[in-house]
């Protein structure tokens, strides 16, 4: 199964961000930027006392390609819930991209699940990023997947082991490219199935 999304820039004509959404993104960022500064990204991930089975889902990426979590069994999956207006979400994307590029050939995948926004809006936003994510961006327009995972705030990130169980969780932005996090992901990759 192909686990890496195609670069969507080649498939979707670039559209201007609707004025209102652009305004919302900017003004939300205006108050949230100091928030990010207030809480500089750490790298601690919390290990769940008992790993729990991840609820299965199927969501589409920018190009309409469906991704089903259960079909990724055997890989280590980082599921990240995010939105464009959320600065710590934006801030952690480059670190996710770096660790994804380093480890995806070894059996690691990132699924960045956008909340409530449209592919057009996210596409416009992605065009502004210096680091262009190559991992799949999926759309949870009615937040039913985030609800099934019990997500209460953005960003929230989960690490799912090769058996499909959630083993680590982080609420709030993180630097996923920290050596401790990479080591932890590598351990999950190396663990027997």
């Amino acid at each position, binding site marked *: 199964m192909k686990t890496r999304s195609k670069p969507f820039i080649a498939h979707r004509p670039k559209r201007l961000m609707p004025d209102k959404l652009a305004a919302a993104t900017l003004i939300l960022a205006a108050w949230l930027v100091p928030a990010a500064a207030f809480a500089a990204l750490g790298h601690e991930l919390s290990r769940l006392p008992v790993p729990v089975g991840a609820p299965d889902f199927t969501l589409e990426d920018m190009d309409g390609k469906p991704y089903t979590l259960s079909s990724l069994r055997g890989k280590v999956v980082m599921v990240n819930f995010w939105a464009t207006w959320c600065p710590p979400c934006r801030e952690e994307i480059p670190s996710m991209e770096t660790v994804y590029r380093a480890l995806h050939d070894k059996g690691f995948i990132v699924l960045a699940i956008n909340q409530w926004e449209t592919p057009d809006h996210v596409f416009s936003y992605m065009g502004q990023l210096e680091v262009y994510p190559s991992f799949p961006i999926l759309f949870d327009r009615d937040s039913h997947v985030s609800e099934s995972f019990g997500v209460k705030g953005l960003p929230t990130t989960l690490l799912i082991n090769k058996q499909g169980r959630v083993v680590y969780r982080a*609420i*709030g932005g*993180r630097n996923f490219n920290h050596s401790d996090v990479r080591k932890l992901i590598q351990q999950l990759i190396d663990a027997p199935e």
Partner: protein
Amino acid sequence: MHYRFIIACLLFPLLAQASDVQRKFNPQTGIESVQVEHPGFSLKLLPLSPDFVSAVFSARGLPKDIVDATRHYCVFGTILKNTGQLPLHYRLTDWRYVTPDGKTHYLKTKTQWLEEWKERSLAFRWVLLYEEQTYQPGDWGQGFTTLPLQAGSQFDLTYSWTQGGKIYEDKIKAVHCAPAKAPDA
């Protein structure tokens, strides 16, 4: 000595840790943000102007009557962080504020907002801070908190959290809602 300790525990069931309060006033906007640091817990309140808040909700497609209603609320960009080594739990329903007339009030929670909106299938809710959550070490969150107060109002906020099996509570005096308009507007 032993009895003194027990009496002290009975008299002070809520622990107040030493806190470091920082205030930053912006004369151009008339907004004063407040940040408090406790061992293991930090809180920041950034007052948001009614224009700003209504623009956020309007831009996300909420109906005009709801957008207008938000103008009657004092809204804060609120950031909570677990800076300690033990799990932290907060519950906004326990937080309260006292207005200058001496009356005690409670925050309007995300659940209460969603209850008002549920007949209208409004899904936009992520911007509101969840009212109850457990943060593991390193976890943090942010979102709007809302108080049914007019712009420019002043109040004392009592906030609390649980960490390591202990309930902590403290107060920030003279918190100011954002003014309706910037002083130089």
